[in-house]
């Protein structure tokens, strides 16, 4: 039991550090999609709902499974879809338009 706890704790702490390292480098311009994207990632709790379903053996367990499944699914599906929608707008600028603005800058 202690062994499992230790390896889980190690994974937890290392993941925290990786998170800090990765997120710290994201420009403030992209903070909303990043937050929305990380929001979608905590939808992984849906995997927890699956585990709960496999273990549930009482009416309370079934109800909790339903709640966990519904909430987690809203989180994971909604999170990825809305993040994709936001990022679609960020990738829209086309190269020719970019060339235009730079020439304007040079001319002025």
């Amino acid at each position: 039991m202690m062994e499992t706890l230790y390896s889980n704790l190690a994974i937890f702490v290392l993941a925290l550090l990786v998170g800090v390292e990765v997120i710290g480098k994201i420009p403030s311009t992209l903070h909303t999609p990043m937050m929305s994207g990380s929001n979608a990632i905590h939808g992984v709790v849906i995997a927890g709902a699956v585990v709960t379903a496999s273990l549930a053996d009482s009416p309370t367990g079934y109800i909790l499974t339903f709640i966990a499944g519904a909430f987690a699914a809203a989180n994971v599906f909604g999170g990825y879809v809305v993040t994709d929608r936001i990022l679609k707008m960020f990738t829209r600028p086309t190269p020719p338009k970019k060339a235009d603005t730079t020439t304007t800058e040079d001319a002025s």
Partner: protein
Amino acid sequence: MTGFQFLVGILYLLSASLFVVGLHMMRAPATARNGNRISAIGMVIAVLATIVLALVVDGGEWIAWVALTAGVLVGAVFGVYRARTVKMTDVPQLVSVFNAVGGSAAAAIAFAAFILATSSDPLELTVSIPVVLDVLIGSITFSGSLIAAGKLQGIIPGNPVTFPGSRLLNALVALIALGASVAAVMLPHNTLLLLVVLVTALILGILMVLAIGGADAPVVVSLLNALTGLAVAMAGFAIDNQALIIAGALVGAAGTILTLQMAQAMNRSVLSIIVGGFGTGETTATAGPADEDLTNVRSLTSDDVAIQLAYAQHVLIVPGYGLAAAQAQHEVAELAALLMAHNIDVKYAIHPVAGRMPGHMNVLLAEANVPYEQMLQLDEANAAFDNCDVALVIGANDVCNPDARKPGNAVSGMPILDADHAKAVVVIKRSMRPGYAGITNPLFTDPKTGMLFADAKKALKDITVAVKEYVSA
């Protein structure tokens, strides 16, 4: 560990790597969308691996699988529908709602694990501690996020809701929640105790976020995002699932970093935001009625502004909360496009806390087709102000208050946009009312500043019409 469990572990490792790579790719707009998809692929792998593992190892009862499928269908339909239909100005509320459901899903999983343990072995500390922490954090996140979403949506008043003895009540509820938590961990498994933890944590979340001003709601959303991540990680500890631990920790770290960055950009400590009170609207009412200032204010018409803009070479637009509230992102983009068509260089100077969540202003401008290259971050923008003919400040207050450079006031030390370094400044604002910091802004009374008192959307439309007439004449 069987060979099969080992294989599932490897798949979890793969999906965790995809989450990290996906987040990493969100550092540039060109790769961000693919980053999100890579993260989604990681999610699919994690979930499929878990389903196969659960079916092979535990099997489970068919009623539970039906309950799960029904729940997932309901949740997925709701989530996708909201994600597709939400207005970009309302994204912070939606993120908050997703925090709420994520946190409560984690709490539900912990609760289920607890009930299951009750019927079998005595509860080990390695299970009971994460279970209780999860129920505690998950419940606070659930009720707190719903209140935050309500505030952002305007269903719940944006000003801090406090009443006599509210702090005492908070402390009392927190104490009961903590006491029940400790008891639930130490005593033999007792569902009633865990229910007390659940209910008090729900109340605590409500009280905590109710007391926070609407202007601080973005920071709170970010903080609750971090807490949701932690709740998910705790659920992972409770059911010994590494995918949940890793993903939860990643999100926890992300939310924490963003919360700290936002608090720093507002020159506030996270603690002072949570405790509420200072600069959250209460002081706005008492701080400096701006009457005497009006004598020094130069009021402009939209024609005046149009002429100034049409004669400029370099224009920097400073969009603020007022622009977001008026949903005037399309109007400002139209004006900028018109100016650019006449060889005027237009860029946007964006403060990290402009809008309703970190980077929200950039999303609103992106929605209006403003190219990413035209959005300057704080440092780039401040370098550009020295060469700027007109700074067009739209509904922004504290983020361009030069008093932040002086000590001894509410915004001292806060990083600001140096709009006052521009040759001329135009401020579009509905009134002289101070921003949420509750102090006057000397930029507005500066001799080189002109004020256009109007709603951002209407003002920008008027200016655009005036510029068109002016340049075609």
